[in-house]
C-alpha cells in the first residue's frame, strides 16, 4: 500500500514536470532545439507613421494586434494581414471598436512611412503602418522576439527579408498577452482577440 502511494506520487511528479515543460515550450512554428528567439516580453515603443510618431501607449485601453513584415513581401505578409482584417471584420461591433492593428516594417530602408500609410489600411482601416530607423526597428523586434534577416539583393536591387510571422496580441493594459502562429484562421484570431478582451474586462 505504501509502495502504491510512492508510485502515485512519482507519477504525479513526472506528470507535473511534463506539464510545466509543455507550458514553457515555444509555440509551434519555431524550432525548440535551435530556437534563436530571445525571451520576449513585448512592451512599449514609439515608431513613425506618415502622420507622426505612434506610441503603443497611445492605444492603452484598446487591444492592439501587432504584425511585423514588409511591403515587398509577396505572400506571408498579405496573407497574415488579410487574415487579421477578416478577423476584425468578424468581431462584434463593441469588440471591434476596442481593437487596433499596427504593421511594423522590418524593411525600413524601402518602407517609408508614406508607403506604409497607403499599404496598411488597405487591409483594414483600423491598421496603421509604422517604420523607423533600422536601429529602432531592431530594438522593437528584439522586444517582441521577432527574427528577421535581409537577403542579398538581386541584379535589379530587389531583395527579400526573411522573418518570423506571428500576430502579437497586446492587452488593453499594454502587456503582451498572446502570440498567434502564422496560418491562424480569421475565426481563431477573432476568438483569441475576444478572449483577451474578456479577461481584460473581468480584471478591471
Amino acid at each position: 500500500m505504501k509502495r502504491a502511494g510512492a508510485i502515485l506520487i512519482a507519477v504525479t511528479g513526472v506528470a507535473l514536470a511534463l506539464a510545466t515543460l509543455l507550458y514553457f515550450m515555444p509555440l509551434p512554428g519555431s524550432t525548440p532545439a535551435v530556437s534563436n528567439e530571445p525571451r520576449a516580453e513585448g512592451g512599449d515603443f514609439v515608431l513613425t507613421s506618415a502622420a507622426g510618431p505612434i506610441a503603443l501607449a497611445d492605444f492603452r485601453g484598446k487591444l492592439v494586434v501587432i504584425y511585423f513584415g514588409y511591403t515587398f513581401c509577396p505572400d506571408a505578409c498579405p496573407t497574415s494581414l488579410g487574415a487579421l482584417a477578416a478577423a476584425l471584420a468578424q468581431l462584434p461591433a463593441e469588440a471591434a471598436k476596442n481593437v487596433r492593428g499596427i504593421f511594423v516594417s522590418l524593411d525600413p530602408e524601402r518602407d517609408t512611412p508614406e508607403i506604409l500609410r497607403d499599404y496598411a489600411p488597405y487591409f483594414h482601416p483600423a491598421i496603421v503602418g509604422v517604420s523607423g530607423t533600422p536601429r529602432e526597428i531592431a530594438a522593437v523586434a528584439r522586444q517582441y522576439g521577432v527574427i528577421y534577416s535581409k537577403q542579398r539583393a538581386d541584379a535589379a536591387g530587389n531583395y527579400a527579408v526573411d522573418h518570423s510571422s506571428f500576430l502579437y496580441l497586446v492587452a488593453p493594459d499594454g502587456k503582451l498577452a498572446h502570440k498567434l502562429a502564422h496560418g491562424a484562421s480569421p475565426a481563431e484570431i477573432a476568438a483569441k482577440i475576444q478572449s483577451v478582451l474578456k479577461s481584460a474586462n473581468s480584471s478591471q
Partner: protein
Amino acid sequence: MTKIIMTKAIALGLALFLATFSGAVLAADSELTVEDAYVRMPPPGARVGAAFMIIGNPTSAARKLVRAQSPAAKVVELHTHRVHEGYMQMRKIDAIEISAAGRVELKPGAYHLMLIDLKTGSKEGDTVPITLFFDDGKSKRIAVPLRRDVVPTSSESGAKN
C-alpha cells in the same frame, strides 16, 4: 572603346536573335491545364503581387514550369514559401514540377508567382495576361483576374472608430 561598342552590339544582336527564336519555338500550346487562377492585387504602396493557380498535367510525362512572364509586370519569378528555423522564406526557384497525370497547387503559403512592379491602377476583375513556359518548350497563355483577396470591411463591423 570600339571594342566595348562591338561587344555591346554583338550582345544586343544575340539577345534579339534569342528573343525572336525562342518566341517562335515556344509558340506551341502546352497540353497542361490551368484552373482557379488569380492575381492577388498588390496593396497600394506595394510593388509586388502574387499569382496563384492550379496547374494540371493530363499527360503521361512529368512537366516542369520553368518560367513565366507578363507584359503587366517587370519581372515574374517562380517562388516557393517555406519556414526555416522560424523564418518565413520566400525564395526564387528554377522550376515547379507537375507530376505525370498530376497537378500542383500554387496557393498562399506555398508556391506562387511573384509579380514585381506590377502595373497598378487596374481594378478587381481586370485580367493580367501571363505566359507560362514549360520544360518541353511549350507554353500557355492565360488571362488571370485580379482579386483583392481581402475581406471587405462591412460598415456594420464598427471598426471605423
